[in-house]
């Protein structure tokens, strides 16, 4: 079964035994929980579109292990065309969901582990690559969703992992047994964790010899004994409990994050891909972050397409579409959005082969891409709010619109142009609210800032990769400076 149907994916999640807490209560059935369900629908769409002949060219790839057609989210990039197609697929997914579809993080994790495990084995004589490939075969065969888990809670940022008052603030190996390792700690901000079949854990940063216990990478079933989750709140999340379909903005789709806690999780050796090889932790972090920074040049652009469309519709419904400043603002939004896309495509086209044979993005351009993502979506959101008008945050509720007594008043006074029903105007304004201030703003705004690393992390990488000495040499030659 190299391609699961969307129904099979949903069914597979129902069979899992997640331990999830949401707003102080254990959730027995995450799949149907009204707050969680839209995020599951987004991941489910990655399965739906892979079955669709109109999208399979982007959504699927040929496995380099078996030659069979697989979902691209399970693929190891074999050339720069694969890297470019990945970004295009992510844009498509953003367009279809208007939200974070969560599955990229696992794809980025397997691609990072692939090359680093290979290089570790070659240098150190370990057997991580063989183990990883065994896992990858299963992932491709069963079309699994995998959560790539990197970010530790980190506690006091001025202290190293082993210097923390509470050592669990970084994920670590607490025991090495003959048959495996025992892990304690947590991973924060885990996108799509409760919609995933497996988790792929990686170290959170470059580790030193003193922090060798924290240089750990492994896979585990997402519902394994010893893992539990505390679901992250999102702005306006309880609107999903109201039962309506206007005020939520995006009824069908969403994203989610959770705190993933390892409570003495046992991991058999066959699922361990790094255990103490601290000198390779930096490469793993750098490559995963690079792939994920590339990802944002696709997914955020797709959501941006939806937001630009919503702003243009709001202008139409407000009767403002012909105003020159509105047209100019929409042009600016498109320009900014396509700038992000250009970066995503550029770092892919300039990718290179690694020793394992998989392809890595151009790290400088991927970091430039993400640095732009920390800024431009905010400007796009600002322009969308400008075009939408204040009503997007002062509008009456869906219940008021449906109320037999005051509904007519809402209809009358919230109307825009005569040919468009008031409800349409309400819907599009709520969608803009959803992406800029509501549940989807987690993905479109703050995740743009901090996801795949905060802005300063990219600036460090840009500084490292910027080749400043070469630029100085160029300037000296042109200026006639002979030393």
């Amino acid at each position, binding site marked *: 079964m190299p391609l699961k149907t969307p129904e099979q994916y949903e069914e597979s999640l129902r069979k899992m035994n997640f331990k999830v807490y949401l707003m102080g209560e254990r959730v027995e059935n995450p799949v149907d929980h009204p707050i969680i369900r839209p995020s599951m629908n987004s991941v489910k769409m990655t399965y739906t579109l892979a079955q669709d002949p109109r999208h399979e060219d982007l959504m699927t790839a040929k496995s380099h292990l078996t030659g069979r057609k697989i979902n691209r989210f399970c693929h190891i990039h074999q050339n720069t065309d694969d890297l470019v197609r990945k970004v295009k697929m992510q844009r498509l997914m953003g367009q279809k969901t208007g939200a974070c579809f969560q599955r990229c993080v696992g794809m980025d994790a397997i691609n990072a582990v692939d090359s680093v495990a290979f290089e570790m084995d070659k240098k150190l004589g370990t057997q991580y690559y063989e183990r990883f490939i065994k896992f990858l075969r299963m992932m491709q065969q069963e079309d699994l969703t995998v959560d790539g888990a990197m970010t530790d809670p980190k506690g006091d940022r001025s202290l190293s992992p082993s210097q923390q008052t509470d050592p669990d603030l970084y994920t670590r190996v607490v025991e090495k047994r003959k048959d495996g390792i025992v892990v304690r700690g947590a991973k924060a901000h885990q996108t799509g964790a409760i919609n995933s079949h497996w988790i792929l854990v990686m170290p959170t940063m470059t580790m030193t010899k003193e922090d060798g216990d924290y240089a750990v990478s492994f896979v585990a079933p997402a519902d394994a004994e010893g893992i539990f989750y505390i679901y992250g709140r999102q702005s306006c999340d309880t609107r999903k409990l109201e039962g309506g379909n206007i005020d939520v903005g995006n009824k069908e789709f969403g994203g989610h994050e959770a705190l993933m806690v390892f409570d003495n999780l046992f991991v058999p050796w066959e699922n361990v891909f790094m255990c103490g090889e601290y000198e390779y932790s930096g490469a793993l972090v750098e490559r995963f972050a690079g792939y994920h920074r590339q990802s944002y040049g696709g997914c955020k652009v797709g959501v941006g397409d939806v937001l630009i469309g919503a702003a243009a519709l709001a202008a139409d419904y407000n009767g403002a579409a012909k105003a020159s400043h509105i047209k100019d603002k929409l042009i600016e939004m498109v320009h900014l959005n396509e700038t992000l896309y250009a970066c995503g495509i550029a770092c892919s086209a*300039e990718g*290179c*082969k690694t*020793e394992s044979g998989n392809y*890595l993005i*151009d790290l400088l351009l991927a970091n430039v891409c993400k640095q732009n993502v920390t800024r431009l979506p905010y400007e796009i959101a600002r322009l969308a709010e400008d075009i939408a008008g204040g009503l997007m945050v002062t509008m009456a509720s869906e219940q008021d619109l449906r109320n037999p007594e005051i509904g007519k008043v809402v209809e009358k006074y919230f109307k825009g142009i005569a040919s468009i029903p008031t409800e349409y105007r309400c819907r599009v304004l709520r969608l803009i609210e959803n992406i800029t201030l509501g549940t989807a703003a987690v993905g479109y705004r703050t995740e743009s800032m901090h996801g795949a690393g905060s802005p300063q992390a990219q600036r460090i990488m840009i500084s490292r990769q910027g*080749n400043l000495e*070469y630029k100085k040499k160029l300037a000296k030659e042109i200026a006639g400076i002979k030393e």
Partner: protein
Amino acid sequence: MSCMDPIGLKYCGGCNPHIDRSGLVREIENRLPYGCTLATDQPSGPWKIAILVCGCPKACADRPAVKSMARCWIHVGGATVEWEPVSKERMAEAIVRKIQEIKLEKGAFL
């Protein structure tokens, strides 16, 4: 290592190199045994061995039309030799060693 035929040399275009390509080639020339030379002018047929010197890992010169210019290539892409990271100071040494390995391994079959 005897050298009857020159070793081919093909550079990328050099738009944004991570390494000093000319310096690397000079160092390779210094390390080659007496009589061994590098040539950029292609003979009538393909070179037996050639070095592809690309300034960055993208290695944009690594394309079929270029690859047909030699039977056997040593790939340099930024600070990598045959896709393996090598410190800039050790690159020439690694490349010359690779040439020797190819000659030993393939010898008469080249």
